């Protein structure tokens, strides 16, 4: 970690001003700091100035006029996951959050920060090795190296890293919209346009401008999906591990049980949450049968490519999609975490320890 200046902002305007005034060198907002501090300790991130936005507000969770829900950028992941409206109307979001990180991290991490976390590629984290994402032009060590965790979709010859977030997979599936502010005003970014593929600029994870601040994440009305959504995460231990593969799946079923709408996104497979509209569309109007789910998985993974160690991820992702759609059909919200426990189904957290703090799940 190197020396940096630190300013604490009280309003969004303050924060934007502080970023503009911060002197030379790269400047960064800091919220929960659960990823940025690690990156600074490892000398991967070297900001000259940090602007603390923890006191600017933006932590509300409230209904929108359009009938959706607005998640404040600075609402904590834990608070978001246990918010009654999120749990009732967007259980997929709760499930994805609770599948990620650890209770301690979720208590600190913010929704906006979650969108900006960097890949956990070993090489990106180790400044003793070449990495195009860290130092463009150095080369990618992962391509011929340890590629177990790496992308099977959308990778480039410059970078095969994956996006590590769970929450973002759910947000992609639900078609969220990211609200951002800069001195120039407000901008809305559809979720599928927020994260980018590595291409020949792997150093850029998102389309967010350097002068822009995420203020909120808007969930469109998706109540039809609430009863049949699942976040399935496959990982190497029961908690505190990034996904080998994860799937956000949701079905809107009509009275006859046919699929009226479908949502499908994958995590751990690409440089961004991987939503596949073609696979969703193919399910619409169909009976929710294993054969239909298999076909959706086939479509979702079209063009998947492995690199040595990660060959298993293609069949794994395929099976995970089929499983997740089956779970969604059965109304099982997650394969891990608190959501598996009976009290999630309706009993309020109020008055329980969970009301105050996110606690570790038990299988």
């Amino acid at each position, binding site marked *: 970690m190197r020396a940096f200046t630190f300013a604490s902002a009280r309003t969004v305007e303050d924060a934007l001003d502080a970023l503009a005034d911060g002197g030379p060198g790269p400047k960064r907002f800091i919220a929960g700091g659960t990823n940025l501090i690690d990156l600074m300790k490892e000398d991967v991130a070297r900001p000259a100035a940090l602007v603390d936005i923890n006191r600017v507000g933006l932590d509300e969770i409230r209904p929108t006029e359009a009938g959706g829900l607005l998640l404040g950028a600075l609402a904590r992941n834990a608070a978001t996951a246990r918010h009654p409206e999120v749990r009732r109307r967007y259980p997929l979001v709760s499930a994805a959050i609770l599948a990620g990180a650890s209770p301690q991290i979720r208590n600190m991490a913010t929704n906006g920060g979650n969108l900006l976390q960097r890949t*956990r590629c070993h*090489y990106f984290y180790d400044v*003793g090795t070449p990495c195009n994402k860290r130092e463009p032009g150095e080369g990618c060590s992962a391509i011929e190296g340890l590629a177990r965790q790496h992308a099977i979709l959308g990778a480039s010859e410059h970078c095969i890293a994956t996006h590590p977030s769970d929450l973002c997979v759910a947000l992609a599936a639900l078609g969220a919209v990211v609200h951002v502010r800069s001195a120039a005003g407000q901008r809305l970014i559809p979720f599928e346009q927020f994260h980018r593929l590595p291409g020949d600029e792997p150093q850029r994870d998102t389309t967010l401008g350097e002068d822009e601040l995420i203020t909120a994440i808007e969930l469109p009305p998706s109540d039809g999906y609430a009863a049949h959504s699942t976040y399935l995460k496959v990982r190497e*231990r029961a*908690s*505190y591990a990034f996904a080998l593969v994860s799937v956000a799946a949701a079905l809107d079923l009509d009275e006859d049980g046919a699929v009226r709408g479908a949502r499908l996104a994958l995590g751990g497979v690409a440089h961004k949450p991987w939503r596949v509209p073609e696979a969703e569309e193919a399910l619409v109007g169909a009976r929710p049968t294993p054969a239909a789910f298999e076909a959706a998985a086939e479509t979702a993974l079209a063009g998947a490519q492995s690199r040595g160690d990660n060959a*298993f991820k293609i*069949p794994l992702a395929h099976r995970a999609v089929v*499983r997740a759609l089956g779970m969604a059909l059965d109304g099982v919200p997650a394969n891990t975490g608190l959501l598996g426990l009976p009290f999630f189904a309706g009993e309020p957290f109020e008055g329980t320890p969970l009301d105050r703090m996110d606690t570790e799940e038990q299988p």
Partner: protein
Amino acid sequence: MTDLIADLETPTAPAGTGTVRLGQPVSRVDGVAKVTGRARYAAEHPAADLVHGVVVNSTIAKGRIISLDTRKAREVPGVLAVLTHENRPRTRSLGLAFKDLTAPAGSPFKPLHDDRIRYSGQPVALVLAETFEAARAASRLVRVRYDERPHDTNLMANLRKAHRPRPLKFGYKPPPSEKGDARAAYGAAEVKIDAVYTAGVEHHNPMEMFASTVILGEDGHLTIYDKNQSSINCRSYVSRVFGLKKSQVTVRNPYVGGAFGSGLRPQYQLPLAVMGTLHLGRSVRVVMTRQQMFTFGHRPETWQRVRLAADRDGTLRSIEHVAIAETSRMEDYTEVVVNWSGKLYACDNIRLGYRLVDLDQYTPIDMRAPGAAHGVHALEVAMDELAVELDMDPLELRLRNYTESSPTEGLPYSSKELRACYTRGAERFGWADRPPHPRSMRDGHELVGWGMATGIWDAAQFYGRATAVLHADGRLVVSSAASDIGTGTYTVMTQIAAATMGLPLEDVVFQLGDSNLPLASVEGGSSHVATIGSAVEGACVELRQKLLRIAGRLPGSPFEHLTLDQVEFTDGSLRVAGSPERSMRLVDLLAAADEQRLEASHTLVSNMFRKRKWALGTHSAVFCEVKVDEDLGTARVTRVVSAIAAGRIMNLKTATSQISGGVVWGISQALHEETHSDHRLGRFMNHNLSEYHVPVNADISNIEVLFVAEDDRVASRLGAKGVGEIGIVGVSAAVCNAVHHATGRRVRSTPMTPDKIMRPW
């Protein structure tokens, strides 16, 4: 004379604890100090005018340093110096000076010695600054140019280069010579198994980072708080490397936040911190980062081949077990991987082999149950494969080949209650209800499997001395330069002394963790209770003798001419056995004799003449249940019963904790834990606890620990054998065997991550 060292921490049981028996599940005497943060670890000891050191590590695996540019680092405000091989204080140049008590054959690594790079992550510079922050920031500005040479870190690609190891290492025994004719017996047998097993590299990752705080006294004396498993070993290392008199150096390790073997040798932060002090003439602290915890010893990667042959009824005809492991180019790290296969089952034909491959990396180091954790894994998975081949219950196969003596040693076991472990463990687990064939049990999407395995470890006893001093106020101070790496040494030694002297636990203090205390061997190999515990008991028995002698001389004494077996020490008093009214409080006894203190010592040297007639060992039977989602490749261990035969148990609570901790690590070895190396870079890459996976709470379900009765006076005068390692041995094999029972597929490589377990595609 050994009394309380004023500034050394001495955890004591809470008032009112009272008298205790051996075996009683006494809570840790250091428990409150630890959970309240009062217990200070190596990096937490304060020192006036302290300088902070941060280490810079190499990014290449082999070559030479062409240049080291430290100018920018030195310009950072607060930076005092940057030490490199070019400007470090003088050290002895002879490799021998760097050899610590547990060093294997070869020439040890010498930090900052010269421009040669021997492994990736090698320390190349130490930045010293007034603050930790300045040192850390400056450490990023040191520019190193290398002349890089081709390296090789890949064991599997170099199995052909395996050589016979030089065997000189404390506690290591080479494989015994062949018994019978194993190859011929294999060729002639009816049923055969021939399989290769591989196990990945692991790093110890104790919670506490390696750290040294070197406090410079006015007289030039160095008091060093260091993380290690033997203060005496590290004191001797520092004095030899830097040519200092032993009396100039004190090493302390009163609290150690886990070590698991990684502290058996001095690690590089220790000599670097001493260099800082010698260079600046100030106290210096050096703490490793979690990433740097991957830049010294590790459990070596291994390749093993096991061939078993048996008659149709399961009688073993031949056991062959060959292991190839990696080491550095500096030393031949050796551990006992295959010898266990010559000790566990009755068999007339046994061939064992062990070879090493030299690679461009740091020398491996003992990690919990070194050698056995993966060696017994291979044997016990092969036994399961044989049971499948024979269509025989795996427990029955083991009982069919049960032995009361060690086949390769040709000696009877001094005690071996493994049969009771099998019986009681199986009963507790419900093994009798196991359906014989794989894929017989299912729970939703998960296949359920039950597996078992046997564990074996040594019953080691080294050397050690303890001193016991009874004070006029009734307090007993017992001392030895032992270590407590979180295992419960403080508690168990206090308990042994209190029980032997019949004193309330809170009146007894055991001080350890200082190189000036009476000599103790390293805390390793599950030897500490049998060694130091025996010395403590010996000192207390000697003290009882002295007290009785004094009592007998008092005028009108009821103890005149009585011997130790005619008296009792209980409730703080000496009394005539069977005559509670003829008693005298120990404090009154000292007062009457006008003694302020009474001291006794005992030096424990293992009785090799007696032990030579016996085979010694600890044993276990492990049973477990796994649930496997074969579509997704995930496995979880839902139930474990571990039945242990490890001699007399001194403290049921701390012993149970040792075993359940071992079981957790066995699950980790089976399913989670591996350090991944990028062989092109010659570098370990998942060097943090986010990517180096150990189990979290949610991975661990029900673990039941049973101890079967054993009391082995050959192993130690206490009857104890030690429980530090045996808990992990066999666990990963039981998990692997359970995965086979669940899925019908045999995974021969650990850890069994989802890519290896998932249904083939």
